């Protein structure tokens, strides 16, 4: 029982890092994705194609590779090791966490951007025409009429991505971010206890359940206004 509590506390500490990575990724990726979506649907051709090419590259390569690029490439190719950047104050753990966060934000922003773009393009043209007839400005049209419908449209695919993000955070362990999985494998390597590795599943499941419940609630709330 004593070990169980000790292990739980140690894993909870790691899970704190997992959650920090999760929430900060969402916080930065969602606005960035909105920007990406606008660029990808832009009428300025070069911007549109550049954005789509970037999204293609990010979506076409593994997040694991992107993590390695962020953490190792600055030092190898540009002689500017990530851990020695002034903004991180020479703190290795902080630099790795920020590096991983950057990779997660860019990666998820690209996936979110495609969902947002789909959500916006799915709104029938008639809605814009109706707004124009009523004399609404472009920003009034977007914020008062279109946006809520977009949110409803993208809720289901977004919940999919967000639940995936919960589990993808485990990849950060490959670049020395001590999240829950790293904490569990450390217990295994140092104290040779195996079960914490499986026990991490309880944390992920619990948190995914919470995320799923929140999305279901949001969906129910929004569906009140239609049908």
């Amino acid at each position, binding site marked *: 029982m004593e070990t169980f509590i000790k292990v739980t506390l140690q894993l909870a500490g790691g899970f704190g890092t997992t959650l920090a990575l999760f929430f900060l990724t969402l916080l930065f990726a969602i606005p960035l994705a909105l920007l990406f979506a606008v660029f990808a649907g832009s009428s300025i051709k070069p911007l549109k194609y550049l954005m789509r090419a970037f999204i293609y590259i990010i979506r076409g390569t593994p997040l694991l590779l992107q993590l390695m690029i962020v953490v190792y490439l600055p030092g190898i190719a540009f002689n500017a090791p990530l851990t020695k950047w002034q903004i991180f104050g*020479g703190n290795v753990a902080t630099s790795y966490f920020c590096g991983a966060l950057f990779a997660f934000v860019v990666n998820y922003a690209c996936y979110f951007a495609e969902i947002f773009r789909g959500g916006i393009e799915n709104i029938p043209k008639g809605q814009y025409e109706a707004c124009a007839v009523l004399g609404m400005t472009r920003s009034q049209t977007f914020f008062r009429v279109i946006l809520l419908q977009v949110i409803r449209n993208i809720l289901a695919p977004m919940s999919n991505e967000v639940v995936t993000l919960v589990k993808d955070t485990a990849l950060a362990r490959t670049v020395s971010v001590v999240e829950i999985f790293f904490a569990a494998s*450390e217990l*295994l*390597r140092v104290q040779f206890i195996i079960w*914490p590795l499986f*026990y991490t599943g*309880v944390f992920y499941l619990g948190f995914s359940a919470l995320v799923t419940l929140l999305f279901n609630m949001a969906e129910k709330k929004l569906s009140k206004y239609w049908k």
Partner: protein
Amino acid sequence: MKKRFIAALAASMLTLSALAGCAGGTETASDSDYEYIKNNGKMVIGITEYQPMNYYDENGTLTGFDTEFAQAVCEKLGIQAEFQIIDWDTKETELKSSNIDCIWNGLTVTEERRGNMDFTTPYLANKQCVVINSADADKYTDIASLSSALMSAESGSAGETAIQSATELASVSYTASASQADALLALNAGNYDAIVIDYTMAKASCGQGDYSNLMIVENIPMASELYAIGFRTGSDMTGHVNEVIKEMVADGSLKAIADKYELTELYEEALNQ
């Protein structure tokens, strides 16, 4: 509907915690591990690719000190040696679940590990050493010069213990790496100033390929440990393999393999301990 969902959720959580609980229980080896392996006709040996112990040569054949050593031992026992690449993090699980029969891959003997496996007679010394970028050769000459360096080692490894137990290194900024290979990669990228890894691995990698700019700082002594083969707790294979090792030490065949991989020094150090 909502209630049912919550009930299902609770049930799945319970199952999972039960599973986790089971995995925590201790397993006992079957009556005779030796008979079990003999009947299979082969011994499944858990390895990771790691020069100079187990690695693929330019023809794609698995070779290395541990590879040749294991093949020689298995031949004497009249069984086949089958090498299985494993994830080093889960080697204890692989061994307990009988996916593999032993871990034979530069495995360091530690007191903590004794709770999870039985060790054979040690056959090589596992010296730890400090590796740096050659550009810093004038900066890091002895252990005192490392006192404010950014350092790393594999989490849970002998190198980590060496850093944490050295009083001169009490104020270094230490970060654990997921593996020795990761530590080398990060050192090469300049993310660390120095790392502590196994001497065998350092010797095989420094100056090779993209690591041509890495070097061992020879005059920094680090704690030395021993390599042995790990079998399941209570396995009678340990005794049988120990017999063969004794023979191979006596007839010089083990030394011949050590010579071939330039490990003579570490082999003799292990014999003397």
